[in-house]
């Protein structure tokens, strides 16, 4: 999936984003919104958290819009921003849960009703048992449809490392699924 698959070429889009033009952000959402949401959902496991994180990506990009003029790999930049936002959200969630398990459940129940009502599948449970760095590479490859080059740019690792991390994640997932009763 290329940056300029539809609509404006990437350089024009980046210029529009750097100028803070609303139509450029609409275009950006059209290009990345769904993929960002899917990757965020795979990382966090909650659609509400995923939507909040995607919104945070867009607002943080708007705030830092002038620096966007120098971005070379828009896909890598957008998904790196998503990764940081998802990491911050996961940290927040862990803190809430640590502060008080009961309070954490109430908070999640209030804001993330789907978590308590939606039972994760065996596959999702196995996915959540993976280490975060393996889970995110699965999310970026399968759910966001990035290439290993784009994943490398987003995670600041080489494409080969991204590919081997992805393979290890699949192998670990296979073992986890085999161990399921």
């Amino acid at each position, binding site marked *: 999936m290329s940056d300029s698959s539809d609509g404006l070429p990437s350089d024009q889009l980046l210029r529009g984003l750097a100028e803070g033009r609303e139509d450029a952000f609409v275009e950006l959402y059209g290009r990345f919104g769904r993929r960002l*949401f899917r990757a965020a959902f795979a990382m966090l496991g909650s659609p509400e958290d995923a939507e909040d994180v995607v919104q945070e990506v867009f607002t943080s990009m708007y705030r830092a819009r002038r620096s966007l003029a120098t971005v070379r790999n828009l896909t890598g930049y957008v998904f790196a921003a998503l990764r940081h936002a998802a990491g911050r959200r996961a940290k927040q969630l862990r803190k809430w849960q640590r502060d008080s398990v009961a309070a954490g459940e109430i908070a999640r129940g209030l804001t993330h009703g789907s978590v308590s009502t939606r039972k994760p599948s065996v596959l999702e449970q196995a996915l959540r048992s993976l280490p975060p760095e393996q889970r995110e590479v699965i999310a970026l490859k399968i759910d966001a449809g990035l290439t290993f080059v784009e994943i490398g740019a987003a995670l600041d690792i080489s494409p080969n490392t991204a590919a081997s991390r992805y393979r290890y994640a699949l192998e670990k997932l296979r073992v986890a699924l085999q161990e399921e009763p």
Partner: protein
Amino acid sequence: MGNLELPKDLADLEQRLAARSMPEPSPELRERIIAAIRRQPVGSPPAEPAGIWTFAAAAGALLLLLLNLSMSAANCTDWKVWERPRQQDVASAVRRLREIVPELSEQEARYLTRAMESGSRLVMMPDLKRRPGGLMEFTLTPSASIRKETGNGLLPGMD
């Protein structure tokens, strides 16, 4: 580098992951995001220009780096301070030595001149071969130039 050659079981697992049910973003998300962007202050300077302190820190770091590099270079550079004395200096020293001690032969005076010139460069070191346990015994070894000049490093008549 788009695809990875995977064994069949992993490729199947990959397909299973791709086919698993995923929620879609709510239709309101797009409008929510646009509204959130509209709420952002328009005139705020998003990327602040580097201030004077950033410049000072960068300049200081550069200065430290240059100092470090120059000191490393100075330590590793042979400045040739101990270059061999010029032939006319040696000849002059030999002449003056023979004036002071006329009984010295030309060869002896030359040897002594060489010895004086190189004496300050000799490093004290224990002579472990000559006397076991004699770590306190030090010897001065004639330099290669002296050995070349005198044949064996000894004064004439001492061998």
